[in-house]
């Protein structure tokens, strides 16, 4: 059981290659952090894993199935079990938080239920509980354009929590949050994953968060995998080399007293 990425490459529309020959093997239940400098291909890799982008070469496999070779209805089912936390949540600005979260289960609901929920939300406790875990429950009925950047990101996380997928992908999910909040959110993502034996792959900009929370670290540079190691084996030289383009400064959240 697991996810396989084999020799995947991806090219942007303007011709630049963002992923070169990436191969990864992921077991169900793992928590992996992807780190690397800006523009290294972290977001593209996550998009390929979420079936948002089709690889130019190579293949991906979910439990032995290639999602690009199966009928549309089966792909829909697979997608309903993959949740993505976007760095900039794709939520219409006038939408209320409750509806934005309910949208997480659109892949599992019938059309009738979806339409009714738009006008009269059919489940209020579920989204409320998700927001509670992220300390945002008092904003349940707020419009999304009234929220700060960090609050909006938490709504995006809440949507994925509500979806309860088997594969959680997170693209820089705490980039707009302060250190305390970042810890809460990452902690919730990991707890959600381990409690349901799901899989979590998160791209992170702050190296210390990655090292602190994730047992396996994948470093990406220029679209290629630089290293793929347990976090205990990652040392400072590797990190400095990874971030060489950023003048060797390792991006960190502020250190927190334990």
């Amino acid at each position, binding site marked *: 059981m697991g996810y396989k990425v084999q020799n995947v490459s991806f090219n942007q529309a303007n011709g630049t290659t963002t992923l070169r020959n990436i191969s990864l093997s992921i077991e169900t239940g793992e928590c992996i952090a992807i780190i690397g400098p800006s523009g290294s291909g972290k977001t593209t890799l996550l998009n390929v894993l*979420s*079936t*948002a982008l089709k690889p130019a070469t190579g293949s991906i496999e979910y439990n032995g199935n290639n999602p690009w070779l199966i009928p549309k209805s089966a792909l*829909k*089912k*697979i*997608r*309903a*079990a*993959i*949740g*993505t936390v*976007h760095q900039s949540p*794709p*939520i*219409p*600005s*006038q*939408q*209320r938080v*409750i*509806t*934005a979260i309910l*949208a*997480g289960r*659109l*892949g*599992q*609901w019938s*059309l009738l239920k*979806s*339409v009714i929920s*738009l*006008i009269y939300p059919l489940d209020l406790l579920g989204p409320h509980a998700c927001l509670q875990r992220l300390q945002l429950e008092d904003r349940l009925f707020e*419009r999304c354009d009234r929220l700060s950047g960090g609050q909006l990101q938490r709504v995006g996380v809440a949507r994925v929590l509500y*979806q309860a*997928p088997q594969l959680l992908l997170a693209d820089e999910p705490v980039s707009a949050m302060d250190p305390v909040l970042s810890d809460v959110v990452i902690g919730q993502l990991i707890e959600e994953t381990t409690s349901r034996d799901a899989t979590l792959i998160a791209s992170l900009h702050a190296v210390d968060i990655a090292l602190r929370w994730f047992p396996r670290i994948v470093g990406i540079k220029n679209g290629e995998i630089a290293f793929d190691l347990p976090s205990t084996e990652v040392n400072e030289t590797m990190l400095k080399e990874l971030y060489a383009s950023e003048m060797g400064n390792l991006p960190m959240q502020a250190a927190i007293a334990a």
Partner: protein
Amino acid sequence: MSTTLNSKIAKQFCLKCLAILCFLIGLSIWSFVYLGLNPFRFFSNYSESSIAPFFARFFPPDLSSTFLLKIGSGILETLSISAIATLLASIISLGLALPNAGKFGPYGKSITRFLCNFLRSVPELVWATIMVLAVGLGPFAGTLALTLHTAGVLGRLFGETLENYPEKNTIALVNIGSGKVAAFIYGTLPGIFPQLLSYSLYRWEMNIRMATILGFVGAGGLGQMLFYELSLLREPKALSIIIAMLFLVILIDALSNKLRLTQRHSMG
């Protein structure tokens, strides 16, 4: 060197403007000449001898309570025709907007564009004449006519709005397994809804005026009443109806201004 260059460019630009302006003025003058109209003779030829007594026959307007009640029901009929037509047309246009924005491929777009152009190029009055033939005299014909024409107008406007709206919200929902329709109503519709509502309300305002006009071919509302009274040469009653039309327009004007100031529409 630079000053001569600049004045050359400036002259060229002005020349183009001037040319267009001259062309337009020439076109306007030609149109008057072609029609054989001399605007300065409007008032000398047909002056006080015929205009004044004609308009004098309209005063005083008939304000009897029975007639005012009739006018009242005429107003309600006009409002109903326009409201239902606009509502129906909006719903139809929402469906038309998707192919119009290219969501069903280039063929869908061309067909829908053609359909919308056809619907809106035929004047409402012509639609009304045809509808009167189809369902008889009365407000239903007017409603159908307005619905058809407005669907063409709104179909195109809705399509343009949809085309200009970024797709990333809807795509994100499709990527978590949502059906296309649900993804649309959760991801795109809330974003475009205020603009669509604005167009619909504006169109309703215009349709109220249109609904009065359609009455001239027997499609109900104040227009039918006016035409009737005028053909019986009952000018005072006609003036009452005209005043009612004015009143309606002023009211709708004020209401739509108020509504525009408090635009806080949200869906979901």
